[in-house]
């Protein structure tokens, strides 16, 4: 009895703090998803009714623009150590040049959040796992740092943490000896916000990245996917990636 009353007092106390936070958000339009109406309560588990996906239009992706990468690094506190070979990259810009025609393009590459992720198949402890809503994550609590997932990932999406870290962000815990990769900004998605990279791309008015629920036929991303042709990188592996590309 009194316990539940306490919880409510506690929550209301938190709510007070949140009001200002929300006020800050409302001045930045475009941060909210289109699915706000179906927002999931914080104490309810994710379900497979939702599958998060991303559509990247390489035609809109500006050559030389690195905003999605910068936003990701800031969001997760990915600071380099001046050692590019061992520094973590969750999202990177890849430049392509057709060997035959000379045509060039540029696109962001991140964890593709496969429906059948090879990293999850090979992980000996099950630390590499796929959430019900399709987000592929590493449970760093049981990751032993064997790096077999990095061997198995066809997209080179994962990084190993090669050194001690300090000052990690509360929503992005990361530490030496474990493997990590793009989380689709799961901490934001759980709070009905879009990933940082998408937000940054939209803020620059490039609009090359769309994020949403590909199980919901009415979502923006589903409509675009239905209307235009898109493809998966290494579609031959039949992994049914959550990230799709237009223009490659």
């Amino acid at each position, binding site marked *: 009895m009194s316990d539940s009353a306490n919880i409510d007092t506690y929550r209301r106390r938190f709510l007070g703090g949140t009001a200002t936070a929300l006020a800050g958000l409302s001045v930045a339009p475009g941060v909210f998803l289109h699915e706000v109406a179906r927002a999931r309560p914080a104490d309810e588990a994710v379900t497979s009714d939702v599958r998060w996906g991303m559509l990247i239009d390489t035609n809109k992706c500006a050559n030389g623009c690195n905003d999605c990468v910068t936003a990701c690094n800031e969001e997760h506190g990915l600071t380099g*150590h001046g*050692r*590019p*070979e*061992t*520094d*973590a*990259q969750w999202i*990177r*810009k*890849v*430049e*392509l*040049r*057709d*060997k*035959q025609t000379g045509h060039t393009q540029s696109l962001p*590459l991140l964890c593709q959040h496969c429906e059948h992720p*090879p990293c*999850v*198949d*090979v*992980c*000996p*402890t*099950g*630390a590499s796992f796929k959430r019900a809503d399709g987000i592929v994550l590493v449970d760093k609590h*049981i*990751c*032993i*740092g*064997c*790096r*077999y997932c*990095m*061997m*198995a*990932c*066809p*997209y*080179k999406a*994962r*990084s*190993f*943490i*090669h*050194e*001690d870290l300090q000052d990690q962000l509360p929503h992005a815990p990361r530490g*030496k*000896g*474990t*493997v990590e990769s793009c989380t689709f900004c799961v901490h934001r998605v759980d709070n009905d916000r879009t990933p940082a990279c998408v937000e940054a791309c939209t803020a620059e008015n490039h609009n090359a990245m769309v994020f949403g629920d590909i199980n919901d036929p009415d979502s923006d991303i589903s409509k675009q996917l239905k209307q235009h042709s898109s493809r998966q*990188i*290494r579609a031959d*592996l039949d992994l049914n990636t959550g990230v799709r590309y237009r223009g*490659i």
Partner: protein
Amino acid sequence: MKQQIQFREIDGGMRFYSLLGFIGLFVLAGLGAAYFMEHNGHHVTGMTNQIIWGTPHVFAVFLIVAASGALNVASISSVFGKTPYKPLARLSGLLAIALLVGGLAVLVLDLGRPDRLIVAMTYYNFKSIFAWNIILYIGFIAIVAVYIWMMMERRMNHFTKLAGLFAFIWRLILTTGTGSIFGFLVAREAYDAALMAPMFIIMSFSFGLAIFILVLMAACKWSDRPLGNLIVYRLKNLLGVFIASVLYFVMVYHLTNLYITEHHGVERFILLDGGVYTNLFWFVQILLGSLVPLALLYHPATGKSRGWIGIASLLVIIGGLAQMYIIIIGGQAYPLELFPGMEVTSSFFDGGINAYVPSLPEVVLGVGGIAIALAAVVIGTRVLGFLPVSLADDQVDPHHAA
């Protein structure tokens, strides 16, 4: 009439302790290297986000593969009933366990979180071939231990064949599992081939036997026990067959890849313009590690010399390490093919050949694994009767006419 083979522990004393002390130095250095790597993080090694598995894995996989091969001598004796191999069966089992322990130690000490070994033992993802391998490795140690016990305990002798058969089947599955670590990787051009599993099995025959021959010759020499030519020649002829078989598998593997256009890039890299990997392939794996030992083992002059047989065995081991290096590190050095027909560049080293230079701690850790295996053999032969008192020709084969 049946002759009883006599086994006895090797003697203690100066020679034993100085040998153990010498090996112990390498074990300590290996442990120190592991501590250095774990304390600082893997950035002090040559391994990166591109070359994910490095020199420790070359040594670890080599040792694990050789471990299952080292058991072959025992299998030939117990399962296939070849009596001349019987005196060697116990040592074969001991060496198998020792090599596996050495390899696993390297593998575990290279983990990002070796402190979480207990997690690897308690959380299993049964779709992972790695998880299966953990069970296969532990099972191997247990089964071979029981097998040795059956051989050593006279009352249990009649179970030897059964235990030997079980161990033989288990080791085939184990090496299949080890090969499949690479065979099951769809992501990389150099892997993703079912051939990996049988190729690893035949590699294990070759590497395991080469190590066994060296260990046997050293053990008999240092413990002043006679070792007749009969058994040595049998072993070296067998080794020649195994070397040729490995060559055959390597040839089939590359021929298949050469036929498939999408694999031309990686084949070109390994066979033609891969720099260190190409050199390692042609000069170390093929020439030094296969053709030269074959010639040495079958040439009428060198094939009868203990020294040359030893050198041939050593060359097989060096060639085997080179082969592992090419498979594991060469396979990662070649970039992932994400966009066929495109030149790919990025800040994350996409599209380029990935650089790797082995660092000292990695090599020291790998050598430490070998030292752990050898230390286990030395201690094992000291405390229990693994080594026959005599391997002279008339002991090995009573019908042998002197």
